[in-house]
């Protein structure tokens, strides 16, 4: 079929000569694409060129002070924050996906409501999450601006994302797997945990990585829930210490306006993390499609 549609360059040129509208549309398409990719390349190039020379060893000192403006505590806090948020969000997301795919009956009204609420959650802007976190976790539950309040806020935020990808991954597991497992005498629960979940793992993992990407990049939801203290939380009550993640750190640097070079460097680090996360997610998804 496709071989009929192949035209030589000369034929294309002739066709464009006949119809100027086609030519204009074609040019518009090309210009737009170049614009989109050009913006991306310019953004990457600009930040890299300005930022890489500013990555200096003192940015990675353990203690933050106004002399070194170290981003190390913020980097470590980001890891801790990501870990705790995932610890809360992933089991809930995966379990609800299991309920939706494996247990809920077709046409169940509750399933419809769950889908609608998940969609609503994914549309809520991060500042509204931040405000909710401030009202609920920080004030009503009395946790103060803390690691825990921030992590809970973020975990609600990434819940719909992880849930949807997990749901799709579970749906993609062929029914024959389940039937085979039942045929061998396994119960429902054993089938879910031993057969369905392992086969759906790459898809679920890709969703979790996307969630990590959102956590790392988030700032608006964290400023009033986790606060902006640039220290690594310590001691027994570390969950209730105020912390800043890398994105919030960058916001603090930029809004003060005095540390523009350090902001460039932080932007580079953030950017590298995002590229790594994207690559990892794509890599796992590719593995999934091959398997």
């Amino acid at each position, binding site marked *: 079929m496709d071989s009929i*549609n192949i035209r030589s360059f000369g034929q294309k040129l002739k*066709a464009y000569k006949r*119809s100027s509208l*086609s030519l204009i*549309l074609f040019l*518009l*398409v090309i210009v*737009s*694409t170049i*614009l*989109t990719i050009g913006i*991306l390349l310019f*953004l990457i190039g*600009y*930040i890299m060129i*300005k930022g890489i020379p500013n990555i200096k060893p003192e940015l990675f000192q353990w203690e933050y002070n106004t002399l070194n403006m170290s981003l190390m505590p913020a980097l470590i806090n980001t890891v801790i924050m990501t870990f705790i948020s995932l610890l809360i969000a992933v*089991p*809930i997301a995966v*379990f*609800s996906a*299991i*309920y*939706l795919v*494996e*247990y*809920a009956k077709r046409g169940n009204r*509750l399933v419809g409501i*769950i889908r609608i*609420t998940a969609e*609503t*959650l994914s*549309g*809520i*802007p*991060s*500042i*509204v*999450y931040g*405000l*909710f976190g401030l*009202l*609920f976790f920080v004030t009503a539950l009395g946790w103060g601006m803390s690691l825990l309040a921030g992590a809970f806020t973020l975990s609600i935020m990434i*819940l719909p994302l992880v*849930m949807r990808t997990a749901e799709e991954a579970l749906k993609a597991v062929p029914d024959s797997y389940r039937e085979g497992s039942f045929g061998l005498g396994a119960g429902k629960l054993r089938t879910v945990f031993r057969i369905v979940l392992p086969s759906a793992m790459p898809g679920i993992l890709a969703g979790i990585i996307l969630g990590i*990407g959102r956590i790392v*990049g*988030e*700032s*608006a939801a964290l400023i*009033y829930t986790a606060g902006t203290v640039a220290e690594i939380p310590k001691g027994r009550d570390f969950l209730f210490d105020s912390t800043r993640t890398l*994105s919030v750190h*960058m916001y603090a640097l930029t809004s003060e306006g005095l540390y523009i070079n350090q902001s460039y460097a932080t*932007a580079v680090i*953030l*950017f590298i993390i*995002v*590229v790594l*996360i*994207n690559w990892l997610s*794509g890599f796992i998804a590719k593995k999934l499609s091959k398997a």
Partner: protein
Amino acid sequence: MKAIFFAAACTSILAVALICLFLFINGVPAVAKIGIFDFLFGKTWKPNNTPPSFGILPMILGSIYVTAGAVVIGVPVGILTAVFMARYCPKRLYCILKPAINLLAGIPSIVYGFFGLVVIVPFIRDTFGGTGSSMLTASILLGIMILPTIVGVSESAIRAVPQSYYEGGLALGASHERSIFFVMLPAAKSGIMAAVVLGIGRAIGETMAVIMVAGNQARMPAGLLKGVRTLTANIIIEMGYAAELHREALIATAVVLFVFILLINLLLSLLKRRTG
């Protein structure tokens, strides 16, 4: 064990319920105190005056204008890029472009904001004069930020149109472009509309990038090259030191934003239903 799965599934319902509850309980009394008309249509926001005035019309208009600007800039470029991705792109190039678009979606908004601050703001200042932190700057930046959403969703909408539509167009003597723009795009209309609505949702909710480039003056929007404050910016800038009625008024601002988002979501689900 089924009960645990069920409980987990109900978490999202609980979360939405809690968010609604806490926002409305904390925000609605303020609206009642200020008066709903004075709050929504009041033209001055001066929380520190005596007596204070809490009119958020400047911010509502600010959000609407900036979002409209982002749509004007981002949507045509986004849809045309989606057309390229779906109908022109050779497979080899696609393997590079698709991850690039995904990367554009993954860049944190704070990095976009910083980019706007160091590149777009000086550019606007040098080209058009003024301070550079303006409605135009914010619109351009948001236009860039909604690009990946628009490209991704419209591309899959265009891909969902059966190939026979395109071939039918060719068979009737239309060129490649005419078949795409006058046969396939109309067929993908509701999917593309959904992309635009998603983009609007992203633009109206964006906070960090906007506050770095928009100027944030709490007054009625005065022109493309003048500073503007959005609903989101109003919340994040003043929440740190606000108290009592001022604080409640800010939460009520979030309620207004939330209602906007709910309306957008409603529109989106209607569009999705039409797509089937």
